[in-house]
């Protein structure tokens, strides 16, 4: 079943540059899609259309069959997005409050909010950080808080914009583990990166973008061949003709 569909999506910024230029794509429910591409190729711009933070100049975006332009609030409930810059995502005055912000906006019961916050903090390894003030945390810890804030919303679709930047090795592994768990539970996952090595082995589909357009789209093992030409390093295993290996074992 199709959950996201965009048709000829274009976005022109006020200074005249095209962030994305004619993207048509269809994503099935439960798919794990990686969007790769060089800096400035339009990954973030594209993802921001999926929950209505940016509105298309041309074309259309449908999430679960309903146009995002007509009902952005619903799209935001369905699509949880971890921002590229964790700092700008944190709104709470303590870690606990920040993670609780999303569930509270969904008007959940207090007990349910607490339960979700605790399990979200647990899965990013920050259980004991509830009372800390987010702006005093390290870069990687902030990123984990941001991720916990989205996990607690338990949206249908998860978007991770460069989730691995700033994370240490154990941090990358536990986030990968969490993403894999979400995927197994049937959530749809979109993840952007320009470093395929860490995640490619777990993905169902790879999309490569260049200058606002999709230039490759298909199975990871096939699409990744020769990706260097688009500013994305081909993983070592793939170069050697071996099977893609996971960071998790």
């Amino acid at each position, binding site marked *: 079943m199709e959950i996201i569909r965009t048709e000829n999506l274009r976005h022109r910024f006020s200074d005249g540059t095209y962030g994305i230029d004619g993207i048509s794509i269809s994503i099935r429910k439960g798919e794990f899609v990686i969007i790769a591409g060089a800096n400035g190729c339009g990954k973030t711009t594209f993802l921001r259309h999926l929950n209505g933070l940016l509105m298309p100049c041309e074309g259309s975006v449908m999430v679960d069959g309903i146009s995002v332009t007509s009902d952005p609030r619903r799209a935001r409930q369905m699509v949880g997005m971890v*921002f590229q810059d964790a700092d700008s995502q944190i709104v709470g005055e303590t870690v606990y409050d920040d993670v609780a912000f999303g569930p509270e906006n969904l008007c959940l019961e207090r007990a349910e909010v607490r339960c979700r916050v605790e399990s979200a903090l647990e899965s990013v390894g920050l259980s004991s950080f509830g009372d800390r003030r987010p702006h*005093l945390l390290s870069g990687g810890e902030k990123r984990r808080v941001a991720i916990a804030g989205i996990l607690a919303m338990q949206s249908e679709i998860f978007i991770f914009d460069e989730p691995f930047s700033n994370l240490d090795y154990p941090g990358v592994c536990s986030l990968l583990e969490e993403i894999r768990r979400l995927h197994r539970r049937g959530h749809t996952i979109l993840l952007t990166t320009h470093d395929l090595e860490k995640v490619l082995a777990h993905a169902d589909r790879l999309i490569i973008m260049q200058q606002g357009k999709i230039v490759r789209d298909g199975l990871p093992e096939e699409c990744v061949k020769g990706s260097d030409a688009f500013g994305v390093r081909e993983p070592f295993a793939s170069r050697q003709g071996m099977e893609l290996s996971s960071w998790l074992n």
Partner: protein
Amino acid sequence: MAELSEFGFRPGLSFLHRLDARFKLLFLLLLSLSILRAEFRGLVFFTALFLFCILRIRISLISLIKEMRYFLLLLFFVFAARALTVPGEKIFQYWQISLSRQGILEGCLVCWRLFAVVLLGLCFISTSRPSEIRGAAEYMLRPVPLIPEKRVGIMLSLLIRFIPLILNQAKETAEAQRARGIEQRKNPVYRLMKFSIPFLRRIFEEADGLVTAMEARCYSENRTPPEYKAGKEEWIFLLLAGFVCAMVLFIS
């Protein structure tokens, strides 16, 4: 500067932590009103009480005084202004400047009152989560007409969140410019311009980003209401606080 650590919530399990924040806010009002009218005897009592609480919350007095140094300086000026201007029996005179006994006494009283209020505020702030304070403020504003209490609540929490951010931003901007040798420039106007333009731009960008982040997480005014937990303990404390205030006002 964002690390104003003594003046923030510190987790703990003391009786002050357990009390409902609405009642604590009420105590804050009640006690500060009576402090501002209390005389020396009352102030001794209050100061002892607050110091006891502060020790119970495990705030170190030395770091406390360090953090309050600017405030103490301010108190000194308040004291000096009083001591020098209030007329009365002169105990020291030099040319036009004279110190009066009444002035010194009154200066002490005023400074002590302000100091006690700050100690009280510290007890409140360091034992209440920001979210609890917000909940309490929302509750108190509910009966006030024409004030959208939920919006005020969200503004309060954004303010708490934004102040350290602004301070951080100022520090980072200054550091970034120092790293590129702004100190070579002696013209203060040039330096101010070079500082304030990127600083203000960043603050606005940051505010814009915050709005986006809130939208992305489905912000609306219709949210899970804050949690209150008033029980028997709170009412007992309220009675006690009322009694104490009445006593203090009576003896002074």
